[in-house]
């Protein structure tokens, strides 16, 4: 079965590359961008459209519709199609028939200048003239390297199409007949849309870990959500739950008129784990749980702890965007337990009796007692270069009670936490 290839050569190929790709995509999946145009495989279209000339005319019609300049040729080999399309016609959009190939001047072929001059002196100026020379004579005179030129003029070139245009997203759009006030009412529509979208993603051999959702609202504004996961998945119910949770955290301000979803491609996830891998929550389950928890306790209260390299009273933070990774550490686990510290939130106000410069007695609203032992005073402050030293700290053991961190700031005493 013969193949056919189409070539569009455009003087504005770089500027119009997106449009040329869009035109090519209407006819083929295999597309190769070249420096001055685009090549694509149109094999099989003869049944749908007709002979190569009709296919070329259809492509030109598309170019005219999009108002893009370009000359088009359809031929059985890539080289033939490219050589034909590169012919200048003087028109903004032109079709070059395969019948014109024999009239092509030799200067368009990949032939050395000296050889061209010799051919010119001999009166060989077109492809047709060169085809009249016996193949063996040409190879005997110019060597095996000339075989490529002969193959090109005989339309037997074996060069193949190398697809280099990759899609990285698919989208789905839906205009609602009547505006919807509550986001949850959209679940059915979204479910349907995600189904279609993921079918397309799967068809291209990909998965997704990033969706962009855009709602057009009745008050003529737009509401956008960017939903990302740390792993690719096409599980519709999971994405639907995630979108629901995200929208419930920050609902649209007005009624929804239309929905647009873009799914970005990602490599599918390898599903097999190691035989001895430790048990972990499924990534989908972990992400959904994190979002449920964010809804429950607030977005800033769920995440992983991060230590800060600063001299602060609480030198740590909670990273709400980061989920536990489950990475194995190469360091051995610490064997011996250490004394932990627990913060009082808020700090516990205290009255402290100081006698002869020594801490003697502590009274709080929950307990009171004599100070048995203490260490300090430690001076601590955050950003000491901005403010003066203000915080003084002691570790104190209170009779019949615990061991605490006692602090004094501006004559105010309080317990920051407990050693436990």
């Amino acid at each position, binding site marked *: 079965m013969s193949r056919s290839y189409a070539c569009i050569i455009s003087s504005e190929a770089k500027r119009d590359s997106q449009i040329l790709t869009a035109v090519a995509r209407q006819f083929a999946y295999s597309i190769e961008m070249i420096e001055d145009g685009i090549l694509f495989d149109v094999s099989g279209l003869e049944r749908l459209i007709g002979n190569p000339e009709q296919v070329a005319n259809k492509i030109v019609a598309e170019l005219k519709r999009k108002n893009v300049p370009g000359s088009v040729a359809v031929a059985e080999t890539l080289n033939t199609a490219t050589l034909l399309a590169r012919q200048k016609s003087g028109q903004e959009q032109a079709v070059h028939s395969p019948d014109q190939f024999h009239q092509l001047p030799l200067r368009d072929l990949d032939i050395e200048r000296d050889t061209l001059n010799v051919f010119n002196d001999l009166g060989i100026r077109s492809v047709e003239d060169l085809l009249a020379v016996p193949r063996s004579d040409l190879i005997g005179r110019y060597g095996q390297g000339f075989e490529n030129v002969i193959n090109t003029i005989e339309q037997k070139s074996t060069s193949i199409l190398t697809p280099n245009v990759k899609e990285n997203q698919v989208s789905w759009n839906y205009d609602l007949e009547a505006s919807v006030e509550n986001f949850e009412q959209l679940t059915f529509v979204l479910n349907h849309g995600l189904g279609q979208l993921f079918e397309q993603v799967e068809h291209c051999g990909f998965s997704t870990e990033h969706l962009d959702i855009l709602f057009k609202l009745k008050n003529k504004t737009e509401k956008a959500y960017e939903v990302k996961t740390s792993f690719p998945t096409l599980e519709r119910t999971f994405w639907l739950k995630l979108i629901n949770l995200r929208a419930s955290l920050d609902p649209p301000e007005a009624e929804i008129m239309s929905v647009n979803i873009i799914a970005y491609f990602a490599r599918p996830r390898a599903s097999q784990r190691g035989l001895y*891998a*430790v*048990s*972990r*929550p*499924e990534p989908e*389950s*972990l992400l*959904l*749980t*994190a979002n*449920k*928890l964010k809804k*429950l*306790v607030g977005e800033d*209260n*769920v*995440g*992983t*702890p*991060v*230590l800060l390299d600063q001299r602060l009273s*609480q*030198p*740590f933070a*909670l990273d709400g965007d*980061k*989920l*536990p*990774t*489950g*990475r*194995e*550490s190469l*360091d051995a*686990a*610490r064997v*011996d*337990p*250490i*004394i*932990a*510290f*627990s*913060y*009082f*939130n808020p700090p516990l106000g205290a009255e402290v009796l100081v006698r002869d410069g020594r801490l003697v007695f502590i009274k709080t609203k929950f307990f009171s007692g004599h100070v*048995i*032992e*203490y*260490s300090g005073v430690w001076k601590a402050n955050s950003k000491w270069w901005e403010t003066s030293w203000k915080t003084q700290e002691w*570790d104190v*053991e209170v009779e019949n009670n*615990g*061991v*605490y961190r006692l602090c004094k700031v501006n004559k105010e005493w309080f317990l920051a*936490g*407990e*050693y*436990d």
Partner: protein
Amino acid sequence: MSKNLHLSLVRSLSSLQEEKEYIDEILLDHIGLSLKRGTIVEIVGEASSGKTSVPLSLLSKLTKTGEICALVDGGNSFDPCTAFLAGVELDNLFWIKCGGSLEKAFLASDYLVQAKGFGAIWLNLNGLSEHQLRMVPKTYWYRYRNRIKETPTVLLVTATEHITGSASHRSLLFSRERTEWSGNGRFKLLRQFHISLLSQKGVYGKPLQTKIKMDYTDV
């Protein structure tokens, strides 16, 4: 006919699912404890009794091997610096701050238990009102127990008094025997706690004695 009807009312034994349980136990050698997976373990103690130190040892052991653990921080009392010193891999720890809300702490635990697959869930109820804790229905604990019994999760609960009732597999009472300080006069440093640990459920015996040291390493 009546015989068939009679037989249809009796479910065949093959339809009954055999209850699976994790035989795997987590050993905390230095303290002399072993915690069974798929169970609730309760740690109770007064101030500075070492009840926070044991969960950190457990989290350290599990997170180092790549297990993901969760901390439901009832009273926002967690200090990641001492957790880091205790060897906890902070990247593998899921921290939920409940800001003193008992209801949120219990709901958060419920979500985590449902998610399944966590190595340990530490429900830290230190700093929450004892009065409120006593009001928590016992059914919560049975719900958690049923949810985790076929999973590898240890649900560790720390509080100042017993609250889990018979739902917990082990209940450990911590108390501080004495505190060791080094140095003289005004130049002293807190060195270690001498801890007594009494198992009140599961494994009975004499109280275990252990020491918990202070680590002054700068993080």
